């Protein structure tokens, strides 16, 4: 059984409440941290090797060290609980079941960064979780862990929950800041980066829920101990939300040494493909990252076992690999149609584009229309090439990474499943009633040395 650092206590009866959480050892990290120098906490986080769990995987300690500290200007920490990347529902799980872990992480992190007013920006649809978090905040405050002069250290902190209102783009950190300022969620043009000019033009750090919760075990264990868990630059544990055609969808905390195969087939995790079907494809890190056919998912192009960690999942780059992303693990069985699945994702990105920049505003809709055409048996071969050309012209040319996130799933689907697209074109009526099936996508690949 793998080691759990975040969800270990998530199912203890009453853990949502302060008393139980405290009895189980909660808030020890706060007691420890508030006696330290804030810079020393940043050092511990650096040593831990923690990488942002929101999707980009940027080193958290390094990010914290970039925060500007001009005299007389407040600094802010904002917790990104917007969680809207299709396939991702891990932050929700953490907040729903063990809210005090996040609050504890926020107190430590706010102290380290010098934020006296910290916001949790939560997606508007998670309405009931707002109540859970506000309850936890109130309890922490009653017990002297929030408010003025926390534990007699002179440190003041208030945490507020801000609800979004339905916009994936508000997960992008500068769009989130705009939204928190009461504006449309239009990403800002960078530079300046939030570390210099963020919320209300003050230096700001935006971190994911899981990232900030992981600060608690880092405090408790010490950065070096934390870094010993996992492998290489994939330290600590990672929450994976698994969904799609598997027997046991849900949220799992993994130590990043297990293989993809174990994760899918072991009873401890996904429990295999549902209904005795075969694995066809998987998007391992949330809808934005490249989809891989079964054969490239389980083994790298070099024929090595693929593991559930940052390095191994991206082994082979975009040509033959994917990404850890947000940990949204979407599994497709042999009956699923790649074109149709890609179409729903294209629709998603078109729907969620803020519309500020022309390649994303116009290109996402165009891709959706062409995919729809192919999916409904009206496509031509040239449409596949056109699709490729459109995604190529969006990628890298937009204000924020949503443009890339829209381009990549389309690119990867064509890269690995081109013959399925062509089959739709060649079988305009058959494709309306039948799927391409597993085809050769699970066949052993010949390894090129």
């Amino acid at each position, binding site marked *: 059984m793998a080691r759990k650092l975040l969800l270990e206590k998530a199912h203890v009866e009453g853990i949502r409440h302060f008393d139980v959480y405290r009895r189980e050892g909660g808030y020890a990290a706060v007691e420890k941290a508030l006696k330290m120098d804030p810079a020393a906490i940043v050092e511990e986080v650096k040593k831990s090797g923690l990488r942002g769990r929101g999707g980009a995987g940027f080193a958290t300690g390094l990010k914290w060290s970039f925060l500007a500290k001009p005299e007389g200007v407040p600094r802010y920490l904002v917790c990104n609980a917007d969680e809207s990347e299709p396939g991702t529902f891990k932050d929700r799980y953490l907040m729903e079941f063990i809210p005090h872990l996040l609050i504890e992480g926020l107190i430590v992190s706010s102290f380290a960064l010098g934020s006296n007013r910290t916001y949790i920006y939560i997606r508007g649809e998670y309405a009931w979780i707002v109540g859970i978090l506000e309850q936890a905040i109130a309890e922490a405050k009653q017990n002297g862990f929030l408010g003025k002069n926390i534990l007699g250290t002179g440190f003041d902190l208030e945490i507020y929950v801000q609800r979004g*209102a339905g916009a994936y783009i508000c997960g992008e950190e500068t769009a989130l800041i705009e939204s928190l300022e009461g504006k449309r969620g239009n990403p800002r043009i960078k530079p300046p980066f939030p570390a210099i000019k963020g919320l209300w033009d003050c230096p700001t750090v935006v971190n994911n829920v899981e990232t900030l919760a992981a600060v608690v075990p880092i405090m408790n264990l010490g950065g070096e101990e934390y870094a010993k868990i996992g492998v290489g630059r994939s330290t600590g544990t990672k929450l994976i939300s698994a969904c799609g055609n598997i027997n046991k969808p849900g949220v799992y905390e993994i130590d990043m040494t297990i293989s993809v195969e174990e994760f899918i087939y072991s009873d401890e995790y996904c429990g295999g493909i549902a209904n005795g079907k075969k694995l066809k494809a998987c998007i391992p890190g949330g*809808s934005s990252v490249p989809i891989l056919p079964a054969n490239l998912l389980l083994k790298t192009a070099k024929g090595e076992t693929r593991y559930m960690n940052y390095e191994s999942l991206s082994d082979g780059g975009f040509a033959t690999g994917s990404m850890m992303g947000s940990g949204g693990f979407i599994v497709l069985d042999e009956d699923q149609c790649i074109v149709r699945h890609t179409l729903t994702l294209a629709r998603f990105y078109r729907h969620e584009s803020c519309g500020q920049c022309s390649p994303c505003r116009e290109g996402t809709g165009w891709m959706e229309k062409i995919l729809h055409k192919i999916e409904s048996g009206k496509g031509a071969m040239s449409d596949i090439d056109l699709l490729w050309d459109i995604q190529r012209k969006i990628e890298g040319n937009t204000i924020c990474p949503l443009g890339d996130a829209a381009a990549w799933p389309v690119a990867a689907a064509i890269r690995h499943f081109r013959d399925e697209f062509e089959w739709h074109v060649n079988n305009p009526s058959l494709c309306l009633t039948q799927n391409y099936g597993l085809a050769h996508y699970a066949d052993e690949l010949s390894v090129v040395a």
Partner: protein
Amino acid sequence: MVKFSEDKIKEVEAIIARYPQGKQKSALIPLLHLAQEEFGGWLSAETMDYVASLLSIESIEVYEVATFYSMFNLNPVGKHVLEVCQTGPCMLKGSDDIIGYIKSKLGIGVGETTADGMFTLKTVECLGACGYAPMMQMGMHYKEHLTPAKVDEIIANCYNHK
């Protein structure tokens, strides 16, 4: 006249107090949520102008925001809004069939409201419940692992608790 009750005004003040002085515009989205709940499940121009006046901002600043976010209804909706997720992971688990089932059961299309004003059907994009698919949002809550039988039950419940 659109106007919050005294209690709600206290809530509004508490929300504004979450932000530093002069940054009251940050309260806009929370206030629009509150207004939508209070004033019939949607935001009329009058409601939005009222929110603008509470925050001392221009009406257009409210319109810009209200039209950006998908949770704000800009037209009247039914008493219950069924928002069914249709993104990839839910599609893999049969969301299209659920949408089809609701359509035929209620005799309405997506974006429409039943004649008795009870239900509005909407499709939405991933709500972060992909592992519990197919699913829909109803007001403040999620209804997950949907089946036709479960949909029947949910709809029947709405009529029973009218």
